[in-house]
């Protein structure tokens, strides 16, 4: 397919994904907003008021970037895994498989849809956060890039999960047993500098730590890890997971018998 027709196909998938997000907005947009509001009230306001400054910021200010990034990660992952697995389960993924569309267009379309949901939810959570504390974005470009890259990494991971999934339980397992623990241990609620060894070193193996801190650096200007390292880690995951996802699509794993 030519670049122009690929663009039309890509636009079609993205529009369909965004239409899906908006059609079921009570499932895609409202729950994360409610959950994060509770986090702000309980951890930020009630408990945070008893905690001192962290890297020179109030506890509420410190956890806002982490909670925004947590929303972006979980919603990007959840969007693509449920949407692509739903297409497999309902067999309408075949509409794309029988078309002349290239595999990379399918992948990019679903990832763009998932990143879009991550960004919408992240923006919603950020707006809610402004009711609780003042925030000034220190580095807008780094903030933007960390959001896009972080959402992309977990969109790709969610896509791989959906390709392998055979039943709906399979797309719930990874968020429950891998994503949630890694997110909570990824420096959302604390600075890993507070941890002693070996927990500090172990924490450095958690990819979410780099995403949370890249975003925190963008918003607050502070980070537990070097910002260049954080971006390298995210780029390595993007390249690696893209390669895996494209290989799976090319071989038709879970899609073509």
């Amino acid at each position, binding site marked *: 397919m030519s670049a122009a027709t690929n663009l039309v*196909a890509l636009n079609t998938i993205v529009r*369909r994904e965004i239409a899906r997000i908006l059609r079921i907005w009570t499932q895609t947009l409202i729950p994360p907003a409610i959950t994060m509001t509770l986090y702000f009230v309980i951890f930020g306001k009630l408990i945070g008021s008893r905690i001192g400054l962290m890297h020179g910021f109030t506890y509420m200010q410190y956890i806002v970037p982490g909670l925004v990034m947590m929303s972006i990660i979980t919603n990007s992952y959840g969007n693509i895994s449920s949407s692509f697995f739903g297409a497999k389960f309902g067999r309408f993924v075949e*509409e794309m498989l*029988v078309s002349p*569309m290239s595999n990379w267009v399918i992948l990019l379309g679903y990832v763009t849809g998932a990143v879009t949901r991550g960004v919408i939810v992240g923006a919603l959570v950020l707006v809610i956060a402004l009711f609780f504390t003042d925030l000034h974005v220190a580095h807008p470009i780094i903030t933007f890039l960390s959001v896009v890259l972080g959402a992309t990494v977990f969109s790709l991971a969610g896509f791989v999960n959906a390709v392998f999934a055979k039943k709906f339980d399979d797309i719930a397992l990874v968020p429950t047993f891998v994503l949630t623990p890694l997110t909570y241990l990824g420096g959302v609620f604390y600075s890993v500098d507070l941890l002693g060894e070996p927990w500090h070193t172990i924490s450095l193996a958690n990819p979410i730590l780099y995403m949370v801190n890249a975003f925190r650096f963008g918003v607050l200007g502070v980070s537990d890890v070097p910002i260049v390292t954080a971006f390298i880690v995210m780029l390595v995951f993007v390249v690696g997971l893209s390669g895996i996802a494209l290989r799976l699509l090319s071989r038709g794993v879970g899609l*073509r018998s």
Partner: protein
Amino acid sequence: MTTPALNVNNLRKTYGNGVEALKGISLTVEPGDFYALLGPNGAGKSTLIGILSSLVNSTSGDAEIFGVSIHKHRSEAMRLIGLVPQELNFNQFEKPFDICVNQAGFYGIGRAEASLRAEKYLKELRLWDKAHGQARTLSGGMKRRLMIARAMMNEPKLLILDEPTAGVDIEIRRSMWQFVSGINAAGTTVILTTHYLEEAEQLCRNIAIIDQGRIVQNTSMKSLLATLDVETFVLDVPSAPGVLPVLPGVVLRTLDDHTIEAEMSRSHDLNSLFAALSSHGVTVTSMRNKSNRLEELFVRLVEHGRENAA
């Protein structure tokens, strides 16, 4: 020499569980043909269609759509095909109009053109009044017609219909065939699989019968039907017939007080049968074939093929 619409060359498929679904299928479909691909359940028809539409990976062999290899130039080949699958495979929560427009989008057709085509085909398939409701609210027949409309969005040169009329009532079935016959007359090559053999007999010019992964017959419909040497007729009579006449080459049986069955060679003329019945005081009020002619041949060919394989 024209390029065939479809040229399948020694196509094989062995599934991961060891089932050999296709054992080296080769066939050719000419452009503009209305081609029947028949076979019992599990014969390998859907596997063949799956490979042609890139939903199933072949183990070996190749196929060309209008000269374009489905393996070497998948994208270009897929652009030429429209598929109406056996199972419903659209998002039930989307609107028929959106389903069609999106399908066109996957083929790189812009939304303005896609919207025009969606309106055209949904109207032709009598679905326009349902175009903007949820697809799950459509009846079974409407859902089948929606899949035909969707398959037409890229205006394919080769349309493959995999049992499109399964479970559809007679009126809708006829309207579907009217539509498909129309697009075939306009130049689209059509490949049809169906279990309604009278449909295949009426619509198709050429036929392949596939069983246990092999082609057991591949010829024109006329040639195939000409091989049927014995036909069985059911004759309706007003009252219980007495002694039936004895005619060479004809086997007459009384089924009940109002029905006689006549099994006769095609070389035997019906006039002599009626004359003999008349001379025995038997009046025939109506008659019909006991079963569809293609059905008789189909059963024979499949059974014969299995005996040979055994």
